[in-house]
């Protein structure tokens, strides 16, 4: 048989056939080629990201921890307590209790505001449906993905925690990265 075989032949090599000398030469040559490959990799820079010090950059549309927003000019909350996010949530992790705004106590721009707004992040699947459902863009998905904690109750994020300016710990991926 000729070597190498044509395109229409699928050749399965189990032993250094055909021809012991050529087979040995080929096996030896392939071994050396493999050694060259590993040596070349050794001279390159490792691709490791040393995680706690370096963080994986995220894309702009990355769905990390949620954020609640306020109007920048008036400081009023955007959320009006409509509970559409809770309705859209497939894992049922959002709890909203609405209350009426009064002239003395005005929290949001609408008639009502969210008195209680809790997201149970131990149940959240980060699908982003809440963000899509919200008519006032009051809730969006942030970039923070470092969300581990010691107890489950610590993962229930309250309104204050979601409204607070988030720690920008996660680098954003630059164009072309």
């Amino acid at each position, binding site marked *: 048989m000729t070597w190498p075989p044509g395109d229409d032949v699928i050749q399965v090599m189990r032993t250094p056939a055909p021809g012991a000398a050529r087979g*040995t030469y080929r096996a030896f040559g392939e*071994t050396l080629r*493999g*050694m060259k*490959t*590993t*040596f070349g*990799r*050794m001279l*390159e820079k*490792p*691709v*490791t990201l*040393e995680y706690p010090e370096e963080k994986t950059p995220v894309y702009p549309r990355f769905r990390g921890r949620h954020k609640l927003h306020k109007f920048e000019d008036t400081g009023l909350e955007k959320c009006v307590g409509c509970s559409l996010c809770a309705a859209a949530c497939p894992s049922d992790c959002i709890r909203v209790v609405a209350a009426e705004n009064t002239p003395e106590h005005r929290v949001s721009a609408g008639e009502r505001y969210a008195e209680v707004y809790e997201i149970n992040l131990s149940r959240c699947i980060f699908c982003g449906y809440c963000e899509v459902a919200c008519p006032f863009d009051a809730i969006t998905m942030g970039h923070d993905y470092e969300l581990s904690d010691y107890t489950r109750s610590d993962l229930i994020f309250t309104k204050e925690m979601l409204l607070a300016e988030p720690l920008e710990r996660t680098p954003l991926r630059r164009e072309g990265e």
Partner: protein
Amino acid sequence: MPTLAVVGFYEEWWIQILKAIVIFAVGLQLVPIVLLAERKLLGRMQARYGPNRVGPFGALQPLADIVKLLTKEQFRPSTSTGFLFALAPCISIVTAVAAFAIIPFGNVQHIFGTPVGLYGIDVSIGPLYLFAFGAVAFYGIMLGGWSSGSKYSFLGAMRGAAQLISYEVSQGLALVGVIFTAGTLSLTGIVEAQQGMWYIVPQFFGFLVFLVAGFAETNRAPFDLTEADAELVGGYNTEYGGGRFASYYFAEYLNVLVVSGIVTTVFLGGWLLPFGIHPPGWVDPFVVLFKMGLMTFLFIWVRATLPRLRYDQLMSFGWKILLPLATLNALVTAVLVVVTH
């Protein structure tokens, strides 16, 4: 009683003891260095860093490993045989250390006016001594695996036994060519005979066969079937933990150093330098250590490159390719030696 072996150079008993302490103080320090170098180099070859958290650049990683292993609980399976289970790692480590004793780091030097040979002992049966301890080392693996009372250990031990026996033949025959050419079994004698030409050139096939068989003898990749992680969990040391496991690990890396040392001595001209450079005597051990380092790098490099052989491939390679090659090499060398002398 007939003389079994002649010792090439005798020293006072206190020099012997001092030498033993110095050689093993240095030699045993090499093991953690090799261990760390292996992990770092394997890491770099796989495009990652390797250990870099303990100490500067991960330099204290072996220390941390050893402390971790030694502070662990000693346990053994209820199916194991107690005294053999404890004895087997000791056999492994004793044979490795004993084999280390004959590696020459230099010829006789005058240190403070006292002649000292820079080796553990210069016996007139160097390679035989090596193979004797190589053969005993197989008991370390065999007894360890068998006395564990576990199927994985037993399978690993059985493979190890077959592999060591198969490759020891080729390893021995590969050295025969060198011994014919040098006309001596003393390792210092073999080095001295390489003045002018290292044996890697005239004995190239012997070198290749010895190297491949050396990989098999030390149970290193691609011949690490005794501890084939993917199929045998850990092979003969599956049931071992703590200090006993550390002993096995230590013995493996010391064996790598021993094989590197023997290749250096027998094929790479020991402490000799090429191009007629004759440095002062104190450089010799560093030359040997440098060459050993290169050989150890080769061991690591091959481990990073080659996949593990299948068991039947291992056996057919050993008996059908390596052994005929070694035999042919010895025969051709013998004929050439007779013709030229």
